[in-house]
């Protein structure tokens, strides 16, 4: 994309607490998301990873601490300006009946349009490009509701791309997809990252895919970051045991040499999950 020359800004959490009054899901969390890299956040259910993502995207406000964009508290940045830089694909986005793919992707242009500014050729060009890169151009006039799960996810990513963010946050973008479509989505995200330098932050359940696609892994447990680094540094049997209460063997992936988690049969220490 055109603005790919400028490096992505640094998104960081400083002493961040979040959740609900009386029940903090995240407690005094510090995290710097490396610009221009793919960061994947993993952790057991209810560890606070989705909450972290929603606070980073300003969907929820922190209870304490703050989120910074290049050192500026995001609470002081105008909403529309923030939306020009940071995009979010939530876990369960919804589209009204009959909405076509082209119309949905076009809605991603909202933060770039002024109050009195009409739709222009640059908007059309950006939407065209976003749809081409995600391979949904052919679907332009189809209703979103008629698409398969994999197609739909690519359409939503196209909408986020039309927004042209420098940082893209995705909450479990591969849930409900079969393995080949999971790979398709992750390959697409990697392409975006490699060609534009867009910072990509993904909450992911699939540990082995996370290890394979992430430049940096963030492992969370009980609202805290327990490990942060490359997959090779972070994904060890000890960390897996701490974060997932799971006994596992970690071996090199035969194809990519990234860590591969092999759970030990009957190795779960979770008796009654607090969820």
């Amino acid at each position, binding site marked *: 994309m055109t603005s790919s020359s400028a490096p992505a800004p640094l998104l960081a959490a400083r002493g961040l607490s979040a959740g609900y009054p009386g029940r903090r899901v995240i407690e005094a969390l510090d995290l710097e998301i490396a610009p221009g890299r793919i960061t994947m956040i993993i952790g057991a259910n209810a560890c606070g990873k989705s909450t972290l993502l929603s606070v980073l995207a300003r969907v929820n406000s922190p209870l304490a601490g703050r989120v910074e964009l290049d050192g500026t508290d995001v609470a002081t940045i105008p*909403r529309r300006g923030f939306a020009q830089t940071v995009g979010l694909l939530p876990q369960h986005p919804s589209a009204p009946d009959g909405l076509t793919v082209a119309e949905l992707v076009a809605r991603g242009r909202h933060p770039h349009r002024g109050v009195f500014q009409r739709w222009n050729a640059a908007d059309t060009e950006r939407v065209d490009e976003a749809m081409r890169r995600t391979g949904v151009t*052919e679907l332009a006039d189809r209703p*979103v509701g008629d698409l398969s799960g994999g197609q739909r996810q690519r359409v939503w990513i196209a909408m986020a791309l039309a927004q042209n963010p420098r940082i893209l946050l995705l909450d479990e973008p591969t849930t409900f997809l079969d393995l080949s479509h999971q790979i398709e989505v992750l390959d697409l995200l990697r392409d975006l990252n490699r060609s534009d330098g867009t910072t990509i932050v993904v909450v992911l359940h699939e540990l082995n895919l996370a290890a394979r696609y992430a430049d940096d892994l963030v492992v969370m447990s009980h609202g805290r970051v327990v490990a942060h680094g490359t997959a090779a540094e972070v994904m060890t049997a000890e960390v897996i045991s701490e974060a997932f209460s799971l006994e596992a063997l970690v071996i090199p992936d035969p194809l990519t040499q990234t860590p591969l988690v092999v759970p030990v049969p009957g190795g779960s220490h979770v008796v009654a999950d607090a969820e």
Partner: protein
Amino acid sequence: MTAVATRPSAPTVGMVRAQVRRRRRIVVTGVVLALVVVAAVSLSVGDYALSPVDLWRTLWGGGERVESYVVFQLRAPRLAMAIVAGAALGVAGALLQSLLSNPLASPDLLGISGGAGVAAVFGILVLGIVGPLLALVAFLGGLVVATFLLLAGSRRGDGEYRLVVAGIGISFLCVSITGYLMTRAQVELAQAALIWLTGTLASTPWWNVLVVLIVSVVALPAVIACGRWLPLTQLGAGTAVSLGVRPGVVRITTVVVAVLLTSTTCAFVGPISFIALCAPAIARPLLGHGAVGIGTSAAVGALLLAGADLIAQYAIPGISLPVGVVTGALGSVFLLWLLMTSKGRHL
């Protein structure tokens, strides 16, 4: 536009969007033409019937005095009120339905009309109010309900659901309070209140039309803003925020505007039922692309109310019904049809 290497017939974004615009133009033109026909008939027929030629001449100021009086003082204000009130109700319905992602959400079912109704009935029966002050009282009643709705809907997560449930509860409460007041009242007063409660456009003076028109124009910028925001909040709160829109602001603005439009019309013509529910439900499938359809709903609402008033005046020879009787009858049939053909609509 950039060249896209795809199958020859592959529609580009520009083409799809141009289709959407073209379809909207056709739909709005069609509805407005139908409205012109209904308006012409409304102005012509009646005890003093005018031929199309006479009507045309009268409209351009060339009619006889009695013709001018019938058209401009008796029929035109009634027709104008039907158009303005119908459009306002159509907009209010479209706003609430898109906000709540619920095709049943409308000012009548959410108790906004009910609140205005209770206040007005209280004004007529207990305080003995008539005239302009009654409109203000009805408006305040709608505002009280709106406050409750916003309080109920302010909770994060399930706010929209709570708002709908609160609205349904409030509307039942209003029915019961109205019933209590009516049974306690003297027959003559109750009769007057009942006609108001049914909703009627009969004997509308021009200044009533003017007030509703002014309020609608004042609300227009907020309506336009909602028209830009609602397509984004439709995609879920998370997506809306990530596109720079605050769902809380959208909710408050939308509800306040819908209440303003509903209770203002309600104040003058009574709680006319079903227009706000039906107009967007007809406009959306006509547009057919998941649109919010505020403008089209306004046009459809105007057509529906003007048409319903025509039926109300002349369907039964010699008897002029309150328009609310007709909208209620037609609207309930429409609601049943909506139920039969619905396959899990999602807005």
